[in-house]
């Protein structure tokens, strides 16, 4: 699988409260509505203008803080093609996997690109093309890839129970 998209660039320690504000966690249940308020307290430009296929590039510890899964859902539903970060906070890492939102750990990209640049990700080759350079990224760990191949945690557990 290959995807191409515009970059939204952020720094370190972006927390789930600014990805999906706590005040919406009760009032919004509809996934499309969640997508509309994504990143509202971080970047109003993103909230207004992010398009399907766009790619988030962030620093260390993306998605720290509250465990709310809506922080992954709102980005998935917005059509974000992938999140590339130097690192992910562990609860959000699980939530992204569970929502089927591709996540890539890479430290080389951040200094090469600017907001709005177009980059390409080849998941089969494990390669990002950005600013005329090719950057390798590691595949998911084998265990995680097994979950992804089954379609996520729930299908995996159902399969193991003979329910799927």
């Amino acid at each position, binding site marked *: 699988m290959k995807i191409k998209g515009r970059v939204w660039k952020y720094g370190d320690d972006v927390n789930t409260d600014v990805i999906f504000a706590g005040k919406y*966690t009760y009032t919004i249940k509809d996934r499309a509505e969640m997508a509309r308020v994504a990143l509202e307290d971080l970047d109003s430009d993103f909230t207004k203008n992010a398009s399907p296929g766009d790619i988030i590039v962030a620093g260390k510890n993306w998605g720290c803080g509250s465990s709310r899964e809506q922080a992954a859902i709102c980005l998935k539903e917005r059509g974000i093609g992938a999140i590339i970060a130097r690192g992910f906070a*562990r609860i959000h890492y699980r939530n992204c996997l569970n929502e089927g939102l591709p996540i890539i750990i890479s430290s080389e990209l951040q200094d090469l690109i600017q907001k709005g640049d177009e980059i390409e990700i080849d998941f089969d080759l494990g390669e990002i093309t950005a600013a005329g350079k090719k950057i390798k990224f590691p595949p998911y760990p084998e*265990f995680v890839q097994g979950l992804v191949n089954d379609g996520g945690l*729930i299908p995996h557990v159902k399969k*193991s129970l003979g329910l799927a």
Partner: protein
Amino acid sequence: MGKTMIMKIMERAAHKEVHTGERVWCDIDWSTARDFGGANCTLQFDEITENKGKVWNPERIAFTFDLQAPSHSEKVSNNQKIIREFARRQGIKHVFDINRGIGQHVLLEHGHVLPGDVILGTDSHMNLLGAVGAFATGVGNTDIAASWLNGTNWFRVPDTMKIEVTGEFPCGVSMRDFLTLLVGDLGAGGLDFLAVEFTGDAIDRATLAERITLCSMVTEMSGKIGLILPSGAVLDWLAERAGPEARVRAGAIKPDPDAVYIETRKYDVSRLEPMASCPDAPDNVKPVREIAGTRVDQVHIGSCTNGRFEDIAAAYEVLERGGFKVSPDVRTIITPATTEVMKKCAERGMIEKFLDAGIVFTNPTCSLCTAEHYGALPSGDVGCSTTNRNFIGKVGKGSHTYLLSPMTAMATAVRGVITDPRDIVC
């Protein structure tokens, strides 16, 4: 090679030898959800099982109502109703409704948590249960719903950092101040994917409340779990609540003398001073004296991090020494962690004194951890709080919050500006 505490916990739950870095399926002792997020779990479970599924074990699932208790709107009420109906339908008896308090604390007080347990919850501060040697972690609703199918989930076996804390706290300084120092030292991502074992004479002497404070904020350094081996009065308390098995289980998670740690850090708290997390991040840390005099609009004492009786009693002492009066220019709110804590405050006559001093004393809830609660801050206001996060917009768009110890928070309420509590109590 010796095993750390988290390895011993995971080996019991995975029924096999584990190694750091590998991912293993663990049996879950408790899979819990709170009002905030709980309805998402139940709706998802019903969806994936087409409304026909039975949970793996209704005795091992608990619901706690703590974030909005009582509900403040029809939408919240409807979410809470979804949870209650699911529990009835599934035969889940452990429902701690709006009258009990903060989930992890309530489970602990009711004797449901044993050292070495593996516990899931929808609260990212579940891991404060590491204070009694349990591995508890916050997860999203999919992880909870999946665990209800068969009582398992997967975890990466983390490396462990050892943090040795020695010395006696000086007057006016508490475990919260040490913790704030630690968050500043290690940073928001400083414990990424790591477990921590807290040891040292300061930890041996620490009350359950202090151990909870310490373990709860591991989340704010992106750690997986902070663990303290139950000992002394804490183990006695636990055995009284959870039964004699607590002693056996505590013995089973004792780290081996040759356990391998990726790093050992040492701190001496005997010269520590009051510390603050400044706007807008827990790791933006300064000594209180550097920000003293800052005008504030609201002070809040409570939360899963600092809402135990000992925390409120420490604030009470500052209020007493400050003349039993808070500044009329500051709105001061105290929220006990649980009903048990609230009753203890009532028995000691503290609540009457708080009310007479001009303080709002609320029922037990998570209270001002989010803007979705009474007391949310308007734009431009400055708040002080003993909660665990001061992310921008967290308790009201355009407001800013300082995170302080209960003593510093009360000293600030008394004077109306950020105040070093040593100016009042020492």
